[in-house]
């Protein structure tokens, strides 16, 4: 019998990192889970598996990478090392000092970084989904696996917004609602794909930093602007090449001949009449229902928003361009002798302008901000006088980071922060069955300031003690340069 190892395997590479000599297929990892086949290349992957195991085994310091070896260069190899809290563990409930209180010198100043993993019962994610497509009415429930996990909130420019999680879904509902909410937050925060359905709305598949998929359709582009803005941007390029342009948009549909931009250019009146409610000159609300058709409306045939042209003003052979705010849909018509639009091929001289609308659209993405509040107990892991930490953060004496990534601290009481999860290393989040999320959080401040706010000075360890052992693995990133989204992740995308 030929042994498995003698059989040729298509599309697999043989790993020689250890004598097991695994054949690893594309996109898979070997028996160790540490080496994988990434597009035919043997790569060292997913150190957090090691990290997570270390955590379950109670290893106090996150085993990670030798700086000399594996990291893909994303986390800058600077002389200043930053210990992130990922996998640091926590001492919740925190009457005890945080797991790591590390001192180091940054630019000649003695600094202390308190590294802990916070258990966030009060937390959630905000999703910005770059699409004009109607995902569902505002305030409607967003569900994962049928359980309510959040709601549709105020839409933003070119984007639909969802607010997920929060204490009411995590712990205020049924057990399975809480579990599903926790799982959804965890997956989104860790950059994984999640399917969500919105009551009376769409089914979407979203992941941080990736294009959203709305009702099985991948969204490619974010609109260049609303219909009115698009008219303003492109009026000059259309002038003389076409008599009328309608930019179809669920929010504000623009009509060139009536729009201020058209007027300034001297575009002739065309006698066009369209559905919807006129806002100001050349700008129309509600030309159709929201949907996943042209420009976030429910239409697939643009003529359905037109009423008959006004006789006496419109003229035969009038040239009409209809286009969506992303340039993905367009149609070109000329009026016949009875002033009815007749579908024609887009003339070459207009192709460029439609193309340009497309080019000016940014790629549509889903972005995920994690938002959480560092509560009393977490703060007491940092200092004996928790409110002083809050004040120190407020006064910018203490810098807060989340897995090494910069955070925005919401003004007002407490330490409520937001962080772009795509700036954080992969799989930085965990959970506890409360249910609540576990997120890394680091407080960095001058040693003297730390002492002044009642820090656990007895527990401060020099950075070198964490880095001393030759083979000691660690989580590194740069203090000097916070991670940028583009710096993330070596593989998969």
């Amino acid at each position, binding site marked *: *019998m030929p*042994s*498995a*190892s003698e*059989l040729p*395997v298509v599309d*697999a590479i043989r790993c*020689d*990192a*250890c*004598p*097991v*000599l*695994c*054949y*690893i*297929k594309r996109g*898979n990892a*070997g*028996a*160790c*889970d540490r080496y994988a086949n990434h597009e035919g290349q043997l790569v060292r992957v997913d150190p957090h*598996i*090691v990290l*997570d*195991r270390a*955590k*379950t*085994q*109670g*290893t*106090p*310091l996150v*085993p990670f990478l030798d700086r000399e070896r594996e990291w893909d260069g994303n986390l800058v190899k600077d002389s200043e090392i930053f210990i992130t809290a990922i996998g640091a563990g*926590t001492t*919740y*409930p925190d009457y005890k000092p945080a797991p790591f209180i590390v001192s180091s010198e940054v630019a000649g100043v003695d600094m202390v970084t308190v590294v802990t993993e916070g*258990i966030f019962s009060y937390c959630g994610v905000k999703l910005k989904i770059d699409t004009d497509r109607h995902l569902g009415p505002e305030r409607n429930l967003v569900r994962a*696996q049928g359980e309510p996990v959040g709601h549709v909130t105020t839409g933003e420019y070119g984007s639909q917004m969802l607010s997920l999680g929060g204490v009411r879904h995590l712990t205020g509902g049924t057990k399975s609602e809480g*579990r599903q909410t926790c799982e959804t937050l*965890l997956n989104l925060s860790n950059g994984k794909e999640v399917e969500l359905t919105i009551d009376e709305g769409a089914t979407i598949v979203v992941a941080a930093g990736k294009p959203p998929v709305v009702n099985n359709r991948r969204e490619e582009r974010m609109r260049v602007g609303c219909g009115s803005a698009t008219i303003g941007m492109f009026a000059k390029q259309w002038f003389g090449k076409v008599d009328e342009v309608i930019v179809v948009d669920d929010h504000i549909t623009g009509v060139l001949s009536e729009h201020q931009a058209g007027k300034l250019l001297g575009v002739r009146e065309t006698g066009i009449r369209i559905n919807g409610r006129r806002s100001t000159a050349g700008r129309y609300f509600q030309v159709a229902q929201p949907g996943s058709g042209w420009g976030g409306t429910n239409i697939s045939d643009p003529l359905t928003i037109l009423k008959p042209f006004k006789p006496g003003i419109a003229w035969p052979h009038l040239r009409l361009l209809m286009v969506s705010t992303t340039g993905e849909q367009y149609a070109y018509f000329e009026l016949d002798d009875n002033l009815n639009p007749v579908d024609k091929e887009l003339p070459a001289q207009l192709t460029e302008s439609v193309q340009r609308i497309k080019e000016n659209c940014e790629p549509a993405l889903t972005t995920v901000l994690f938002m959480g509040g560092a509560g009393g107990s977490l703060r007491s892991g940092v200092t004996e006088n928790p409110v002083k930490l809050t004040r120190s953060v407020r006064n910018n004496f203490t810098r807060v980071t989340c897995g090494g990534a910069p955070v925005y601290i919401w003004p007002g009481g407490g330490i409520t922060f937001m962080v772009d999860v795509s700036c954080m290393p992969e*799989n930085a989040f*965990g*959970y*506890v*069955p*409360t249910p*609540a999320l*576990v997120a890394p959080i680091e407080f960095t401040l001058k040693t003297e300031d730390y002492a002044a706010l009642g820090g656990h000075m007895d527990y401060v360890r020099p950075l070198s003690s*964490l880095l001393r*052992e030759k*083979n*000691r693995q660690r989580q590194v990133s740069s203090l000097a340069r916070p991670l940028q989204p583009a710096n993330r992740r070596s593989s998969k995308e």
Partner: protein
Amino acid sequence: MREKPIVRMLPDERRLHLHDGPIDLIVEAFGSKAEIRTAYEAAARRFLTILDELCAELPLLRSAARLKGTRPNGIVARRMADAVGPFATEHFITPMAAVAGAVAEEILGAMTTAANLLRAYVNNGGDIALDLAGGGSFEIGLIERPDRPSLFGSIKLHASQSIRGIATSGWRGRSFSLGIADAVTVLAERAAMADAAATIIANAVDLPNHPAILRVPACEIAPDNDLGEQLVTRAVGELTPREITQALHSGVVVARQFISRGLICAAAFRLQGQSRVEPQALRMMTLIDHPDAESLGSVLHV
């Protein structure tokens, strides 16, 4: 390039970390300082060649165990073959099903032979070999998802009991499973036996042909895996409480057989939030229904 095995002390300066290829061991010995050092040196020495020994016989270890089949040569390989032997007539199993436990046992054996210790353990990714020669106890935490550390129960093992091996198997773990259990933790006299039995019992926790379970031929994921074309579980959709009970029951039936044959001492099951313990009267095992944040902790308390 062949990476060298890693032998190092963990930052707590108490525990030893041994790593080579897919083997990752956390080792701790208790006793006098000198004895601990002797034990760690013996463990490291034994560890350095263990992966090469196993790989020399890998094709044999990856083929189905048969009662009168070829016997492997290596000490650890024989330990594996011996552990899976009692299951071979009724179940598909390869010696690889006991590799983690067998390695843990071997390293523990090297330590207890070389040094006079009070207690010791070798934790091979959740498959644990224990020594309680000097009395005392170990407290073991049960974890259902290796990627998300949270305890669903704990076990207190005393020297007076015969249990010296613990192993966990489930589809979420590193090895493939034919079943759908999130975790099956088995207590046995030896780690290799616990490992083999956990594999088979976890395979038995199943709902055949259930549409919510995604199964893929093992070879499609790992071409040289010992399971070949057998369908391994890759995802389990939400099950009804009734289905969960039914699947757990299938596993419990198998566990009962193994307990009555004296192969294992006990088993704990976990599937989508439901837990079972067999035998039910087992006192030393505590299952947590609503574990709170405080229970987040190490797998092995001492």
